[in-house]
């Protein structure tokens, strides 16, 4: 029987804790896992506890950025539905630039902390995934409040409901790519400063 937490969770933790704190943080979690959680709750529950603790570190690093990312998407959606423009060019440019900027800054910052560009990729994916939940939830709430004929016409002209509910999920791949670029920038900046 396995008496250690899942390896993948430990590997994930490494990306979201500073290198100087990884050993003591993972040691604290391992000590509690082996000493009290596993004997009292069994393997499955203990693993869940460990994963929840690791996800707590991920959430603390990416949660705010995900809300910003998703919030920007919801704001753009609300504008398109409630104040429809003649052309979408300017709004598309601004919202795309804003989304990329949020992902770049967030992933560079997390990579700076961990010293690994891979942290940027994982942060990009996490922010895009959590942001998708915020975006889809926000758009659904907006639709629940405003579904009069004028709004429904504006929705059709702005790309339809498919775009609103599918696009956030499709943004996860670009999220990883932009996150990787941000991660490279953050890790390179840290190396340059430390050199």
């Amino acid at each position, binding site marked *: 029987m396995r008496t250690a937490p899942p390896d993948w969770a430990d590997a994930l933790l490494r990306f979201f*804790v*500073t290198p100087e*704190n990884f*050993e*003591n*943080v*993972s*040691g*604290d*979690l*391992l*000590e*509690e896992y*082996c*000493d009290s959680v596993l004997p009292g709750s069994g393997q499955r529950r203990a693993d869940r506890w460990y994963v*929840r*603790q690791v996800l*707590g*570190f991920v*959430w*603390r690093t990416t949660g705010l950025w995900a809300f910003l990312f998703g919030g920007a998407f919801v704001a753009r959606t609300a504008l398109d539905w409630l104040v429809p423009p003649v052309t979408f060019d300017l709004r598309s440019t601004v919202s795309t630039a804003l989304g990329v900027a949020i992902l770049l800054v967030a992933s560079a910052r997390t990579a700076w902390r961990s010293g690994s560009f891979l942290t940027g990729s994982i942060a990009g994916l996490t922010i895009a995934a959590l942001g998708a939940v915020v975006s889809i939830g926000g758009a659904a709430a907006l639709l629940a409040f405003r579904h009069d004929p004028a709004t429904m016409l504006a929705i059709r002209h702005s790309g339809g409901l498919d775009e609103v509910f599918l696009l956030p999920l499709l943004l996860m791949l670009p999220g990883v790519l932009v996150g990787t670029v941000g991660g490279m920038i953050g890790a390179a900046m840290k190396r340059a400063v430390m050199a």
Partner: protein
Amino acid sequence: MAEVLGIFEQAVLLALLRLREEAYGRAIRREVEARLARDVSAGAVHATLERLERKGLVVSDLGSGTPIRAGRPRRFYRLKPDGLRVLNQTRATVDSLWRGLKWPLKGFA
């Protein structure tokens, strides 16, 4: 203006005072959980400790590992004089807020 700490920061700093030489991550988390009577994540405690260390209120040193930790070291935290000063300021501010009021409060709700 006096620097006032939040409840969670106070809980963590007071845990360091109570635990003395035994103040490392897991022990601090358990002490804070017991005092606040709620679940506290390891992430919340470590983020707070990192912030307090950046602010110069606590200092830390790595200890030795143990077999149950697969040899991974414990990081022990201690209060710095500035940490003690800010805790005292916080207590004085809270006392000042409550001065003249009978506790528990009655008749205003």
